[in-house]
């Protein structure tokens, strides 16, 4: 959908904001751009609607270089939501929403229907709100309008530049939920710039973590958290990582005395007490021996988060669980492991326990 090919942006003062940047944003996905300030994430985003032109390299939308589009028409088809909200203070809500449809020469009726529909979509009654001025709305309401203004002419692409960072935490969360819900219906390609890793994880189908104009890691949120590619990523997401997000692979232990080989089981000398994991000679998981009975047993994939694993564990009466990677046993998870892990990540400060 949107493709960056070796894009570099060098500002006049010599700062190299984006370096040899290549990235493909897939149709219908929400890609969050995140990184410390000055990492080039906003520059990257603004190059898509040509608010900033790259120094070298090119950007393609639907396979066509964005320079070959009429710049205004290009922008009419890319919704833009700003951090500062930037509703035009002298225009009513309806007039604000109607700007791009009007430029695209939609009929009055079409425009009106559309703005009513959008207002309803974000839970603002058109009868009450459409003739109000932006200043009469709360911050959260204003940014809702900011979002639907970007959606008004039904663009394929939406750019969002830290859209919720100026809002209070409650409004922010509400709007994040709204966007999630909305995106399920509208399936737009969204490029979302944020400095808030929680937001990036919550909203992004993929996260692109940048530093000094380069991509450090581009991955789905769970992979980014579970397999940070380097220290920097780890640090960036560090505090965000709940102990529940840890992959079970890293908690589980490989205790030889709890593993039985399938060949040794031939015959009836089963142990009548305790739980064991049975593997074949290739270390492929075969089943569980529990109190003398062989059973199929509940199994856990190694990259599952502890949170998800706990779901599996919940309905089971097993005392231990095999952790598998491609059918091979990589570890054994017990409730003891889990408790130890949770205890090890918690700290106690001034009598307040924090995870």
């Amino acid at each position, binding site marked *: 959908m949107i493709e960056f090919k070796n894009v570099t942006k060098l500002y006049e003062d010599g700062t190299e904001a984006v370096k040899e940047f290549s990235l493909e944003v897939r149709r219908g996905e929400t890609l969050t751009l995140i990184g410390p300030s000055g990492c080039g994430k906003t520059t990257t985003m603004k190059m898509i609607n040509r*608010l900033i032109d790259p120094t070298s390299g090119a950007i393609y939308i639907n396979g066509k270089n964005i320079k070959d589009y009429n710049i205004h028409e*290009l*922008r009419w088809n890319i919704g*833009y939501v*700003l951090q500062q*909200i*930037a509703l*035009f203070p002298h225009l009513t809500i309806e007039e604000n929403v109607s700007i*791009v449809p009007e430029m695209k020469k939609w009929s009055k009726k079409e425009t009106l229907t559309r703005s009513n529909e959008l207002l309803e979509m974000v839970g603002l009654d058109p009868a009450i709100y459409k003739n109000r001025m932006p200043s009469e709305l709360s911050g959260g309401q204003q940014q809702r309008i900011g979002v639907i203004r970007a959606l008004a002419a039904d663009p394929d692409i939406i*750019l969002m530049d830290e859209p919720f960072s100026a809002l209070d935490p409650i409004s922010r969360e509400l709007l994040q939920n709204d966007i999630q819900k909305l995106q399920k219906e509208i399936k737009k390609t969204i490029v979302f710039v944020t400095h808030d890793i929680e937001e990036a994880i919550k909203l992004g189908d993929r996260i692109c973590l940048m530093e000094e104009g380069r991509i450090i890691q581009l991955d789905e949120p769970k992979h980014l958290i579970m397999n940070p590619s380097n220290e920097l990523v780890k640090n960036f997401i560090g505090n965000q990582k709940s102990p529940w997000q840890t992959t079970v692979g890293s908690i589980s232990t490989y205790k030889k005395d709890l593993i039985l080989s399938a060949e040794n089981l031939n015959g009836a000398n089963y142990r009548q007490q305790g739980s064991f994991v049975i593997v074949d000679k290739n270390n492929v998981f075969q089943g569980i021996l529990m109190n003398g009975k062989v059973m199929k047993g509940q199994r856990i994939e190694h990259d599952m988060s502890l949170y998800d694993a706990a779901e599996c564990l919940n309905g089971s009466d097993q005392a231990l669980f095999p952790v598998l990677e491609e059918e091979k046993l990589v570890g054994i998870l017990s409730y003891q492991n889990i408790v130890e892990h949770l205890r090890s990540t918690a700290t106690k400060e001034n009598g307040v326990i924090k995870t």
Partner: protein
Amino acid sequence: MNEFITVFQKRQNMLLETTLEHLQISMISLIIAVILAVPLGLILTRYPKVAEPIIGVSAVMQTIPSLAVLAFLIPFFGIGTTPAIIALVLYGLLPILRNTYTGINEVNPALTEAATGMGMNSLKRLTKVELPIAMPVIMAGIRTSMVLIVGTTTIAALIGAGGLGEIILLGLDRGADINLILLGAIPAALLAILLDFILKILEKFSKKAGIKSFILTFLIAIFIIATPFIWNGNKQPDLVIGGKMGSEPELLINMYKLLIEEETDLTVSLEPNLGKTAFVFSALQEGSIDIFPEFTGTAIVTHMEDQAESNEAREVYEQARQGMKDEFDMEFLQPMAFNNTYAVATTKEMADQYDLREIGDLKRIENEITAGFTLEFNDRYDGYVGMQDVYNLEIADIKTMEPGIRQSALTNGEVDIIDAYATDSYMIELDLVTLDDPENLFPPYQGAPLMRTDTLETYPELEAILNQLSGKITDEEMRQMNYKVDYDDESPNEVARTYLENEGLLPN
């Protein structure tokens, strides 16, 4: 108050006419200023590097005194409405320019970015976002400019553009007649308030109806205002006779007009009460007037920048005539009898108290008295400079002031002596005493028609017609006629006609 009402009733027609002129001149100037400054301000926002220098230039224009701007413009544009409007436009530019520039620049950059990001082109962004948001600031500039212009339009009267300044100047000339000054100043203030109110409504309206209808309203306003202006461009007169400020020149030019129209088919129009000697003279050079009565002494001292070689009236005239011919290619026709020379005047009480008869007698009290002199007198050799030299005077305190207010300063006791013109009417009214000039410091100031040689070549009959006044009108007659105009409020035209009829120059 009663006096004010009387003045108001007597001058209703003049008031209405000058108010309309005032409104017209101010509005045209304001509209031109807006048409120039708003787009310029908008362009400057796109070129911030040149913005400050250009705004600086318009600020410099504001610091030049309006009179100086007028003086500068006369050689190029003559007298009348055109130079007045140019000067006023220059005055009105700065507030509009600065506020437009600031207003647009102060639009929140996020809004500009939003507009651009949404795909507005530069023009669309300007009309849909920047202008409406900057409008209150721009309108504030326009309103400031309007007040400035309406106020400054009062000086337009100095170059014959009319307006309420005419009434104010008349008041100043008539010894700072407070009622007349108020009659001019109050409507000017009311006009400013009224226009401010209209602009405020216009601003509100533009907020509701959008920028397009605002521009439309503006165009309609131009149309309405320009229409009477175009009407005025009717038949040009053959001759325009100008005159300096005051009743005496106005009487003389009325006589010229009456005589010329009596004996020829030429049409003559009058431009009385032109501000300063320099204005009238450059208007004559430039051609927007054809004749004006000038004093022989002034011709020598001011125009030729020379000294009178004699104190004998005939010789002074001859020197002036020759000089004007040689230096400026102008004809100075025969002078009239009266000698409106400078005189040093004081009150009768003062003269009695200190036994003042001659200018030299002032020496005794030079450390105690305050003099009220015109700027011109204070600076001339045949004025105070000469008094210092010839009579060895060093007056302790000198206040320079407009001619029109000297006499009230004297009667109020704020000054003890003034420079006066010998034929001024207040000499009678205020019973002033003139001090003798035994050293003949002040050269004769005889009035005579001054015109360009080419005018006389085109209308040679003028010489004979105007020379009928040669040697006529004595000091006393002139004083009496001035008195009739200034204090009895008779029309200069009527007083002039009566005199000419009595002299047999016009048929009864």
